[in-house]
C-alpha cells in the first residue's frame, strides 16, 4: 500500500490547479490561494475518505464548503465581482478573434447568480462531466441536468440583452 503522504502529494500535484481555478471562479484570485490551502488541509485530515481514483469532484465539493464557510456572502460577491471585472477587462484587451463574444459572454455570466455561474462553469471551465458536477453541488444528476438547462437559458437571455441578435445567428 502506498504511503499516505505520497498519495496525498500525488493528488495535490494532479489537482491543485483545478482547485485553484474553481476557487478563482468563486472568490477571485486574491482569496484563491487560501481556499486551495484550506481545501487540501481538509483533504489531508479526511484522507481516509479521499477517493483514490477520481478525487477531483470530492476536492471541489470540499472547496465549495470552504468557500461558503470561510467567507460571508457579501465578501464572496464583492471579491468575485472584482474578479469578473478583471476577466472582462482582459477579454476586451485581447486582440484575438471573437473578442466581442468572449467579453460579452463573460459580462452575461457576471449577471447571473452565484449558483448559476457555478453550474455552468463546472462544466465549461473545470471540465467536469455532469455526473461529477452533480457530486460537487450535491444534487442528483437528474436534478443537475434540469438546473443546468435553466442556468443555460438565463445565460442566453443575459447574453441576448447585451448583444444585437445578428451577432450570433
Amino acid at each position, binding site marked *: 500500500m502506498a504511503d499516505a503522504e505520497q498519495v496525498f502529494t500525488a493528488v495535490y500535484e494532479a489537482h*491543485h*490547479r*483545478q482547485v*485553484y*481555478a474553481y476557487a*478563482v*471562479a468563486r472568490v477571485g*484570485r486574491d482569496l484563491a490561494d487560501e481556499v486551495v490551502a484550506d481545501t487540501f488541509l481538509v483533504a489531508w485530515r479526511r484522507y481516509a475518505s479521499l*477517493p*483514490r*481514483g*477520481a478525487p*477531483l469532484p*470530492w476536492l471541489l465539493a470540499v472547496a465549495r464548503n470552504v468557500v461558503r464557510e470561510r467567507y460571508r456572502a457579501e465578501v464572496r460577491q464583492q471579491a468575485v465581482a472584482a*474578479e469578473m471585472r*478583471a*476577466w472582462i477587462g*482582459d*477579454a476586451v484587451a485581447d486582440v484575438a478573434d*471573437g473578442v466581442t*463574444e*468572449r*467579453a460579452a*459572454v*463573460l459580462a452575461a*455570466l457576471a449577471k447571473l447568480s452565484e449558483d448559476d455561474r457555478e453550474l*455552468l*462553469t463546472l*462544466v*465549461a*471551465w*473545470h*471540465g*467536469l*462531466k*455532469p*455526473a*461529477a*458536477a*452533480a*457530486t460537487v453541488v*450535491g*444534487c*442528483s*444528476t*437528474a*436534478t*443537475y*441536468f*434540469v438546473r*443546468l*438547462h*435553466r442556468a*443555460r*437559458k438565463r*445565460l*442566453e437571455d443575459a*447574453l441576448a440583452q447585451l448583444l444585437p441578435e445578428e451577432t*450570433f*445567428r
Partner: protein
Amino acid sequence: MSFDILDNLATARPDRLDPPGRPPLILDSAGTRRARPRLFVAAGALVTAAAGVVAVALAVSGSSTPAPAPAAPEPATAGQLLLAAAEHSEAVAPATGGRYLVVGSESGWTVPTDGGYQVVEKELSQYWFARSDADKSWVVVEPLGAAPASAADRAAWAAHGSPAVVHVTAPKPFDLSVAAPGKRYGNVIDPQHLFALGDLNVSQTELDALPTEPAALRNALLKRYRGGGSDMPTDRNEWLFSVTSSVLMDLPVSRAVRGAAYHVLAGLPGVRALGTVTDQRGRSGQAVATTERQAGQGTFEVRLIFDPNTGAPLAREYRAVAPAGRLAWLKAGQLSSYALVLAPEATDDNPPAVITPSR
C-alpha cells in the same frame, strides 16, 4: 450553423483561472479535454449515473428484429462469439430515408428508497438526426418513472401502500415518481460536436476515419488513452474494453468499424462468455462480460449483450461485484444500471414537443 452557449463560455475561460507562473493546464484548455457534449451527456449521464459511467447510448446501426436464439452449436468462447458478431455485422441494411434518423436508448439504474426496498429509475433518450440542413437535430430525454427492482422489492413497495412517489435515499435524496411524468426534455444538438470516445470529444469526421482493421482500430483507440480516471477505468485493458464497447453501442460508426470493434474485444484478456441471456426488455442475445474497477465505487461486472447472428448490439449492464462508496448499498450480483440500444428508425415525423432551455 448551431450555437452552443456552453461552447461559447468554454472559449471565454479566463486565463486568470490558472495559477500565476505556471503553464495553463492542458486539461483545462477549452476544447482540448472538456466535458463530453454537455446537455446530451447530461442526458446520457442519467443513463448510467448509478454506475458512474457516462454513456450516451446510441447506435445508428443494428437490426430491429429481436434476436433469434443463436443457431446451434453455440460458439463456446467469448472470442468466438464476438468474432461471429463481427462476421455478421455487415449483413444488415442500415435505416435510410426519411427526414430524421431516430436512434434511441432506454436506460435504468437501481436506487434505494427510505422504505427499505429498491426501485429502478428509467429513462428514454432519443437522438433525432436531421437528414437535411433544413431541419435541426435534437436530443429528447423522457423520464419513464420507476419500477420496483425485484419481486421482493415489489412486495415491499406494495406493503408500503404502493406509493406513487418514492423517496430515494442515495446517492442523493430526491422524490421519484413511479409513473412516467409524461415530460420530455430536449435541446437542439450539433451532431458534429456530440460524441465522445472515452473522455475526449470526437467529431463525426474522426469517427468516419476510424480504421476498419482490428489491430489498427485498437491502436487508434489506445492513442486516446491518457491513464483513464474520472468516470473511466484507469487499467489500460479495462479502459480499452469500455471505449471499444462504446464504439459498438454508443457511436455512429460504419458496420466495418463495428466489426473491427468486436475483433478488438475478442482480443482482450479477461473477457468471458456468459452464454444466452435476455436484456431488460426480454430480448435474447449472447453476453460477454468483463470486470471493471470504478474509482470510489468498487468493482462491477460489465455485461455486453449482442446478437451474434446480426452483429447488433442490444444492451450493456453493470452488476455489482464488490460495490463500495456511494454504491456500497448494492448487493453483490445485483443489477446497478443498464442501457438498451433501441433499433434506429427513419421517420418523416417532427420531433416531439419538448421542454427546452433555449428555444
